[in-house]
C-alpha cells in the first residue's frame, strides 16, 4: 500500500482586502482587478488611437487631393473653446471623485453631472464642426484628408459619448442610493476612462489642428 506523504505548504496566503467593502475585488497582489483591467484597456487604446493618428498624419498632406484642405476648414478659435471645455471636464471629474470619497453625495452628483454636461457640450461642438465641414465640401469620401480626419475625430467622439453614458449611469445610481463612499473605486475607474479621453484629445488637438501643415 502506497504511503502518500503529506507536505505541509502552510496556510494559503491571505488576500489583501481593498477596505471598501467589495469582497469580490480582493486579490493576492493588492491590485484590484477592475482597475488593472481598465489600465490594460487604456494601454491598448493608446495603440488604437496611435494607429488612426498615424494614418491622419500620413494622409493629410498627400498631393492632388480633392476638396478643401485643413487650412481651409479648421476653425482654431472654435476648437480651442471645445478643447478648453473638455479640459475642464477632467477637473470636475476629479472633484466628483474627491466628493464621493468624503461621503459628500450631493457634491458628487453636481460634479459628475457637470462632467457629463461638459462632455455633451464638447460633442455638440464636434457635431457643429462636422456639419460645417460638410457644408464646405469636406465629407468622409471627399479625400484622404477627409476620411482620416472624420474617422479619427469621430472615433474620439464615440469614446466621449460612451463616457457620458457611463457618467450618467453613475449619477443615476447615486440618485437611487446605490453608490456611496464604499463604491468610490467604481467612480475612480470611470474617471480613468474619462481622463484618458481627455489626454487623447490633448494629442489630437496639437497634432491635427495646431501643428502647421
Amino acid at each position: 500500500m502506497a504511503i502518500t506523504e503529506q507536505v505541509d505548504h502552510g496556510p494559503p496566503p491571505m488576500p489583501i482586502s481593498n477596505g471598501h467593502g467589495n469582497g469580490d475585488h480582493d486579490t493576492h497582489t493588492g491590485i484590484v482587478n477592475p482597475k488593472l483591467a481598465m489600465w490594460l484597456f487604456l494601454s491598448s487604446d493608446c495603440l488604437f488611437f496611435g494607429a488612426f493618428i498615424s494614418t491622419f498624419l500620413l494622409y493629410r498632406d498627400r498631393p492632388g487631393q480633392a476638396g478643401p484642405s485643413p487650412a481651409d476648414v479648421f476653425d482654431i478659435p472654435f476648437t480651442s473653446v471645445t478643447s478648453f471645455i473638455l479640459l475642464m471636464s477632467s477637473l470636475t471629474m476629479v472633484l466628483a471623485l474627491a466628493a464621493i470619497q468624503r461621503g459628500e453625495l450631493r457634491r458628487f452628483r453636481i460634479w459628475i453631472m457637470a462632467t457629463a454636461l461638459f462632455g455633451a457640450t464638447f460633442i455638440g461642438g464636434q457635431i457643429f464642426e462636422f456639419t460645417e465641414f460638410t457644408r464646405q465640401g469636406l465629407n468622409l469620401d471627399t479625400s484622404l484628408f477627409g476620411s482620416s480626419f472624420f474617422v479619427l475625430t469621430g472615433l474620439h467622439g464615440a469614446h466621449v459619448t460612451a463616457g457620458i453614458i457611463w457618467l450618467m449611469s453613475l449619477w443615476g445610481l447615486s440618485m437611487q442610493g446605490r453608490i456611496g463612499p464604499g463604491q468610490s473605486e467604481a467612480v475612480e475607474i470611470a474617471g480613468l476612462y474619462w481622463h484618458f479621453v481627455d489626454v487623447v484629445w490633448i494629442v489630437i488637438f496639437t497634432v491635427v489642428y495646431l501643428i502647421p501643415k
Partner: protein
Amino acid sequence: MTDPNDEATNESPVATAEQAAERAIERAEERLPEEMTTPAPGLLPGELRPHPTPVQYVTVAVVLVVITAIEIAVSYTEGTLPDGLIVVLLIVMAFVKFFLVAAWYMHLRTDAPVFRRFFIVGAAAAILLYLIVLTTLHALS
C-alpha cells in the same frame, strides 16, 4: 552634492511646470478652508499615497489652461517663427499637458507603479507604431 541627473531633470519643461504648480498650490493653501486643502480620507485599492487635494486639482487645471493658451498663441506665429520651432514647442507643451493629466488626475503619482508601467508601455508602443508607419509608408510613396 548635486546629482547631475537631478539637475538635468529639474531643467526639463515637465519639472519646471510641476515646480510652478507646487509653488502656486502652497500659496493658495495658506488662504483656503481645511476641506479644500486636505486629501480625501483613506486610500483606494492600489494606491500608495493619498490623492491630491481639491486645491491641487484646481491649480493643475489652471496650469493646463495657461499652457493651452500658450499653445494656441504659438500656433498663430506661423510665418514668424520657423515651422520646426513651432512643431517642437507644440509637442513639448502637449507632452507637459499629457503628463500633468496622467500624473495628477489619473493619479499615477500616487498609485502602484504597475499602472504607470502599463500606460508607458501603451503610449511608447503607439509612438513606435507611428514611427514605423511613417518611415515605411513614406519610403514607399
